[in-house]
């Protein structure tokens, strides 16, 4: 079993934690794919192996002010359902996560209870396939270096044993452009027959503006995708702004209530003293 996660998905997850004051928890969304790998052994016996890949593609943070589980670690299903209910997602719930600050990287009893309940709710047929992502944020003595230590685990249904799962962060790898041809192809320029064939096929591969047609096509696809990213970016900026303003408004109301509470207490204190 392996976990695969894109770099931008992982950084979004870690940002979610950095952006909250306290600890952070939430659901992990993605897909589970079983790959059948046919392995032809030396004795030529077909020995099929099933390799399970867990793709984590999104996350949903739980609100800090409104807990989705009881004090003992029992989830409140209607609250979880509300988080997922309106979603038009293609992704499944593949696990959950927990961020803590300056704390141990060990699963607590409450976390075990919560895991068991979530697993039963979201992954009843394959209990050993439900993920828990644990991440601890520690700061050095002088606050100069921040560390995020993290890993994925599953919990065995029978034994309750915690098993760590290998994690791969998908990324670009090598981008050093070493595969391009920079020299003329001697065997092409030497053979008159080859040159004749290539001249015939020129129009199938090269556009009228002397550009390679497939390059034009992939450029168009890539540009369209990047343009749509920019449009989506604007939508997100708006929704960030709207939610941000509402948060500040709510924060203002809390402060107002707190002030009133202080005044009320002060007033009561004066009355008490006066009596």
């Amino acid at each position: 079993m392996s976990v695969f996660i894109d770099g931008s998905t992982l950084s979004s997850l870690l940002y979610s934690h950095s952006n909250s004051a306290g600890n952070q928890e939430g659901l992990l969304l993605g897909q589970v794919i079983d790959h059948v790998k046919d392995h032809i052994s030396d004795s030529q016996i077909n020995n099929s192996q099933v390799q399970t890949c867990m793709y984590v593609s999104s996350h949903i943070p739980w609100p800090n002010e409104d807990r989705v589980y009881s004090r003992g670690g029992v989830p409140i299903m209607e609250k979880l359902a509300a988080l997922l209910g309106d979603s038009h997602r293609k992704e499944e719930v593949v696990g959950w996560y927990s961020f803590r600050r300056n704390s141990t990287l060990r699963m607590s009893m409450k976390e075990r209870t919560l895991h068991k309940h979530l697993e039963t709710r979201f992954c009843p047929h394959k209990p050993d396939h439900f993920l828990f992502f644990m991440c601890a944020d520690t700061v050095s003595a002088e606050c100069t270096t921040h560390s995020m230590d993290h890993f994925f685990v599953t919990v065995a249904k029978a034994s309750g044993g915690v098993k760590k799962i290998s994690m791969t962060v998908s990324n670009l790898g090598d981008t050093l452009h070493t595969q391009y041809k920079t020299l003329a192809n001697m065997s092409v320029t030497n053979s008159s027959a080859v040159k004749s064939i290539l001249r015939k096929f020129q129009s199938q591969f090269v556009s009228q503006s002397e550009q390679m047609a497939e390059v034009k096509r992939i450029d168009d696809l890539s540009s369209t995708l990047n343009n749509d990213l920019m449009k989506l970016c604007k939508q997100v900026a708006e929704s960030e702004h709207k939610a941000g303003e509402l948060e500040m408004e709510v924060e203002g109301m809390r402060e107002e209530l707190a002030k009133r509470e202080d005044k009320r207490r002060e007033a009561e204190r004066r009355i008490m003293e006066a009596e």
Partner: protein
Amino acid sequence: MPASCVQLESDAYLVCLTHALSTEREEVMGLLIGEVDVNRVVHISAVIVLRRSDKQPDRVEISPEQLSDASTKAERLAQELKRPMRVIGWYHSHPHITVWPSHVDVRTQAMYQMMDDNFVGLIFSVFNEDKNTKQSRIQVTCFQAVQGGYGGSEHERYEVPLKITPSSAIGWECLEALVELPGILKQEEEEAYQNASVSVPEEDLISRIHNSAVYTKSLCHVMEVLSGPLMTMLENRLEINRIRHQHLLRQKQQLQKRLTETT
């Protein structure tokens, strides 16, 4: 006088980290935009992702052109926000290696400090998995350079306190920087393709097809590893905000009710 402390806004942290996690085979880099207050606290609120002009996996260097472009961007941002924004630092990644700056890093930092003694450096250590424990670690450190002890000529690392501060929203500049990443990589690929194609004769259709296939494969890779996941991430962000907004509205109503009661 060195910076006393650095406050890195969490959405700027998101951009740096996304960039750092974009490739495990090369060091990536960028510039940090922000302000310095009267207490020499550096406030970083935006990021400029830089292209790798000279592709050497273990070297990062900012060209004069890149610095000039970045200053222009910072000035534009300052006007938009009505705040004194400027290029106030740089960041780069250390894939598979320690978070601590190398001698070259410290020397590079010392050079930038000659222009601006509040200029700071951030290093993101990424792609560090312990194969035995299957535990991964991502680190970020903040540093400047100081003169070596006893009047030595060699510069030494000076660690600067770093705080990653929450914000109520991911700012437009940070969102824009994120979605510019695939575009930057596309430009790099275009340049590589054009440089290679210049020396291939027009009649050599096979090499031209080969080069266009290399280009196609590279762009597919960028779309698959970066554009696609960023799209998913932003769509998820919309969903998170929808949930958050719904939740905040409920809270607002409750608070409104309580405020009415206490009037």
